[in-house]
């Protein structure tokens, strides 16, 4: 059966919101939970030790816990925080950039890679496998055709590298040195007043024809439509995908998880999935089309 994971929280939520979210998530039918700040180094509601404590709690509840690293590393301070995660041996690490790869490999810490890692072919997976790679996420812009070929080639190589697919939520599409939330409020990035806290599911960026294009979330830009591969789960199971990643939202996440849990057990609902925060669905990437497209089965 496909496994379910909760990806790292991509938004900036208050400390209490984060604790409440995971206290609930401990009861949900997810196998793996990714913890840590992956977007902005200024988001420090939880310190590395808070994340580690949370990781231990969730592990005690029977969850497989992975510590996720920051995606855009820019400073020595970022590297120091990174080392805190990549120099422990209690938990698996999700490397989200090549700095994390280097530190994990140097410390002989087993790791997996997140969807922002540039993995497009089997040769790349083979190199990382030799260095301790335990599993990997498909980059969000790749689809089922490439994934299927990769899985077949890995099998031919005799490599057991479980594949995970970002399957529900707003797609993380870009990271910048610029903070778009601060820019919107006309604030300097270094003095942003933590405005992201006011936008627990980001800010909508629309075309001048009101088409939902992107979601601004600090230094990151996400898709304006919500990626939803619920109906593609049977496809994934057939081709040998290991884990289906659901990206946290602050409202109604439990219902999303339970819906996917049913689908992986073979109960495909007749109606479309829940729409929590208002946003159109998309699944184009999976079918090799523009990501924003919605391909009807």
């Amino acid at each position: 059966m496909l496994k379910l994971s909760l990806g790292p929280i991509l938004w900036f939520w208050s400390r209490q919101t984060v604790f409440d979210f995971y206290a609930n998530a401990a009861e949900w039918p997810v196998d793996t939970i990714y913890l840590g700040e992956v977007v902005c180094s200024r988001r420090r509601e939880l310190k590395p030790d808070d994340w580690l404590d949370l990781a231990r709690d969730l592990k005690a509840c029977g969850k497989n816990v992975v510590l996720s690293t920051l995606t855009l590393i820019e400073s020595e301070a970022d590297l120091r925080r990174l080392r805190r995660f990549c120099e422990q041996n209690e938990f698996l690490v999700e490397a989200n950039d090549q700095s994390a790869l280097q530190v994990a490999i140097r410390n002989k810490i087993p790791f997996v890679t997140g969807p922002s890692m540039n993995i497009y072919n089997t040769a790349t997976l083979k190199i990382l496998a030799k260095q301790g790679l335990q599993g990997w996420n498909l980059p969000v812009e790749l689809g089922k055709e490439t994934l299927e070929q990769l899985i077949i080639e890995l099998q031919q190589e005799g490599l057991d590298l479980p594949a995970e697919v970002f399957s529900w939520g707003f797609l993380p599409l870009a990271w910048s040195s610029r903070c778009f939330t601060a820019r919107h409020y006309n604030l300097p990035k270094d003095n942003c007043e933590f405005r992201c806290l006011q936008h627990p599911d980001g800010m909508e960026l629309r075309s001048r024809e009101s088409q939902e294009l992107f979601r601004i979330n600090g230094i990151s830009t996400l898709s304006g439509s919500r990626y939803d591969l619920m109906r593609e789960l049977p496809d994934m199971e057939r081709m040998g995908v290991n884990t289906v990643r659901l990206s946290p939202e602050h409202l109604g996440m439990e219902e999303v998880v339970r819906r996917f849990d049913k689908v992986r057990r073979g109960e495909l609902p007749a109606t479309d999935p829940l729409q929590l925060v208002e946003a159109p669905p998309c699944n184009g990437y999976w079918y090799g089309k523009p990501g924003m497209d919605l391909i009807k089965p």
Partner: protein
Amino acid sequence: MELVCPAGSLPALKTAVDNGANAVYFGFKDSTNARQFAGLNFNDKRAAEGIEYAHLRGARVFCAINTYPQPDGWEQWKGAVDRAASLGVDAIILADMGLLDYAANRYPNIPRHLSVQGSATSHEALSFYKDNFDIRRAVLPRVLSLDQVRGVAKHSPVELEVFAFGSLCIMAEGRCYLSSYLTDESPNTRGACSPAKAVRWQETSQGLESRLNDVLIDRYGQGESAGYPTLCKGRFEVEGHVYHAIEEPVSLNTLDLLPELQALGISAVKIEGRQRSPAYIADVARTWRNALDNLEAGTDGFTVEPQWQQTLAGLSEGGLTTLGAYHRKWK
């Protein structure tokens, strides 16, 4: 510091060399490089001619194979590395780990440069590429501030090349999927951002509209100059305000920073723009050559001549330039 100039065509390559480039970089006529444009880039015959021209005049030639091959493209991309090697290039600019590994094993004597598409933003990331693929040089992404470049340079295990002039990518390169979200092509997969095949211009009663795969990127009123609809440089609406929500159409220009870059031990400055005309390349290369010569003469201290800035501003998007992320205030 070495001046590295773009060559999208043989005339551009020759112009760059004639106007003082120490090195030029080019790509093949396909999606193995990050500037896939119709009518641009080199076949093997033209590349051989260009390499000979440059070598006779003491300039080096780098070949960019800096997109990411998927399984069905693996043989083609590997073939591009073989072609570059047999042409006798002075370095291959690579991003993909699989290809870096192939090049390092098959052609250990041809230097490997890490492309900006390799997304290395720290000295740890550079060490990863150095340890695994013995890269000689890395091109730093345009997202780092000068302070951050200083931090990277201090511990860097390899030579560093930084962007000096041209289009400004404000997203961490090699990890930006905005283009493939709106179209079906991205820099990583096809060497294209906001591809021309998806662009449509339309004169309407509200003004001139630029669209990318039907998405309205910008609309220009009377007297406004229109620019190419690179999707991150459009005007969008956020909470009722319409503005350049991601980035203005401006160019990066780091002339003012040259002394600092030199002090940091940066090995090379890179000019962006393989899609540009030979006339553009001539002006930019000459201006930067003058600046670098002035810097190296170092007699009365380095000053930026107004004439240089004027030339470069005239060649910039919207006539505007910025220090980009190098300058902390920009954020």
